[in-house]
């Protein structure tokens, strides 16, 4: 026993170290990619700028009124909303997927985005609202949908399976109502509502952006801190309880974090689909064995959304809402990752 233990322990240490090195490398690489895309988004357009001009203007290093106007006035809001919304969607998506132990259980599928959508579409069509009021309604709708699901799924605690089923029901209910409201709307309002439903980072206003940024600064570290109980939950409720995790408390806390993030993201940019769904799996495949990091998933979300915005605005014949392109950008990459990791037998 004493003879065998040291090599075994050493192998374990080596594996652990290799794992954490890989996680660190992937995270740093993703962060660099996000930063580069963030700058590129502000460089391109009808008035081209160099990377240095953009960085200098954002950090207030040089004083050049015309460049400042283009960068800070026009392009920074879009780029910042792409960055923050992407981070929020990626993080909340992976939180949901891990919490419910189901790769399909992203916020779009379990009714939260639908709740936000119904509130916003109702506001546009029935109350003739616009701008900040729509964002507020979307935020309220998302939180209401999440609360409704949690309350309905509660019966001596919440199990993942029941939560998913209730989520399906809630999503179908809200989608049915959205369909009804759209058929009763006038054509111009229906178009406006459809545009909001597609989701676009370009429609963000200053106030919403500030709220989302502040929330991210608080909630992302909190989510990463809460990851230990999250890991235990992945083993199943009974195991987690046996390991000493207070399952209900951790689950409620994480769920609240995820809901607030996705609700704010939807209120800023509309229900952009698929980012939350595919950011987590892509991050997991990049991370290899050390799966489940929230930070890498959030960064992947930001990469996806910034790239999608670049494609939607600059590569398409006419500028499109970002939400139209997110799937086209992320899906082929996820499929390619699936194909290659499957070949190695590590696809899961």
């Amino acid at each position, binding site marked *: 026993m004493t003879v065998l233990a040291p090599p075994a322990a050493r192998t374990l240490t080596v594996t652990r170290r290799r794992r954490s090195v890989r996680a660190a490398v992937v995270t740093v690489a993703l962060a660099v990619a996000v930063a580069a895309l963030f700058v590129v988004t502000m460089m391109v357009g009808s008035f081209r700028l160099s990377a240095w001009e953009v960085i200098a203007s954002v950090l207030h290093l040089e004083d050049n009124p015309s460049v400042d106007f283009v960068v800070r006035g026009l392009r920074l809001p879009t780029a910042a909303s792409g960055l923050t919304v992407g981070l929020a969607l990626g993080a909340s998506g992976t939180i949901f997927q891990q919490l419910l132990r*189901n*790769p*399909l*259980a992203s916020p779009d*599928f379990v009714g939260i985005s639908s709740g936000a959508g119904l509130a916003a579409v109702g506001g546009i069509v029935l109350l003739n609202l616009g701008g900040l009021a729509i964002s507020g309604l979307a935020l309220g709708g998302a939180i209401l949908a999440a609360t409704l699901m949690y309350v*309905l*799924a509660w*019966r001596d605690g919440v*199990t993942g*399976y*029941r939560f*998913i*089923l*209730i989520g*399906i*029901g*809630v999503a*179908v*209910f*809200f*989608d*049915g*109502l959205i*369909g*009804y409201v759209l*058929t009763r709307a006038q054509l111009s309002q229906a178009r406006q509502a459809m545009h909001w439903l*597609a989701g676009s980072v370009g429609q963000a206003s200053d106030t919403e952006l500030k709220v989302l940024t502040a929330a991210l600064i608080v909630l992302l570290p909190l989510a990463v801190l809460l990851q230990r109980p999250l890991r235990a939950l992945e083993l199943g409720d009974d195991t987690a309880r046996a390991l000493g995790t207070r399952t209900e408390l951790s689950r409620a806390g994480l769920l609240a974090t995820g809901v607030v993030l996705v609700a704010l993201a939807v209120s800023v940019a509309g229900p952009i*689909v*698929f980012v939350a*769904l*595919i950011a987590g*799996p892509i991050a997991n495949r990049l991370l290899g064995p050390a799966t489940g990091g929230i930070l890498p998933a959030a960064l992947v979300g930001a990469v996806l959304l910034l790239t999608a915005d670049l494609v939607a605005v600059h590569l*398409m*014949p*006419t500028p*499109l*809402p970002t939400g*139209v*392109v*997110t*799937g*086209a*950008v*992320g*899906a*082929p990459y*996820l*499929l390619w990752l*699936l*194909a290659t*990791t*499957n*070949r*190695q*037998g590590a*696809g*899961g």
Partner: protein
Amino acid sequence: MSATSRYATRTSARGSRRASALGPGLVALCVVLAVVAFLSVTMGSRSIGLSEVLHALGSLNNDGSTNSTVTLELRVPRTLLGIVVGAALGVAGAILQGVTRNPLADAGIMGINAGAAAFVVFAITVLGFRGVGVYVWFAFAGAIGALLLVYSIASLGREGATPIKLALAGAAVTAGLTSVTTGIVMTNVDALNELRFWQVGSLAGRYAPILTGVAPFLLVGLVASLGFGRALNGLALGEDVARGLGQHVTRTRAAAFAVVAILAGAATAACGPIVFIGLVVPHLARFICGPDYRWIIPYSMLLAPIILLLADVLGRVAGAPDELQVGVVLGVLGAPAFVAVVRYAKLSEV
């Protein structure tokens, strides 16, 4: 010893009692389906007297009157289509949830709707086709193509198409195809207008030629699906156990997927995307009969058309003189009912 044997007798007695209750339950559902089908033929925005309906149905040939025409050429095909399409969607959902062991799996998330929509848009923009009758075959091809793509990507690698790989590949293919379709539609107003009507998912406007076109596929698929109960029960225990029980896991999965492709593909081609049925009905069936797929499949096959036809009739009556789409009715009335069932029924996991 005596305690265990008593327990064993009690459980087996419960099992047989369950089977003896489930058999008549199927018959009862058949009766309910017949009643609902009759309602679907008699009720609608144009009120036709009971005797006239019976007369038209009894003689089975069109005597030229408007009522007879409406009954025989609009309502009967619509009802028949509702029955086969509903049954197909319900069974396809049950089989997919069994194969992927995922309560969120349905034909939509496996790429069926996205593939069908992409091919319809292709037919409109590139080939310049118009009309529901032509879209049927493009939608069918697109649905099958998307499912094949999902399955072939998921089955790369040693373990074959595991549930998690199927779910991810399905979600990814759906995401990509939907984006491409939306992108094209947003730049091409003409295509948007056509797709808008195809995408509602409705039994309306689908008449006899479409029914006779897709019915053979649906009937073959429905008959084939009845043979999957035992295999899916094995898969539900996990691949290793299923393999240990002598099952050929890869072959079962491929066959099940082929049946789902035919059923859901033809149904979506005929009616456009109808969600809810494939996703929710298998769960309802599971609440009634427990985790045994030999019962879940026939129960889904009968429950699904009952719910679909009821929603269709309600949409016709409540929305008169217009119609409410089936999808709207299903969402607004069906979803709360489903939530209530989930909340108060005893859950058996997939």
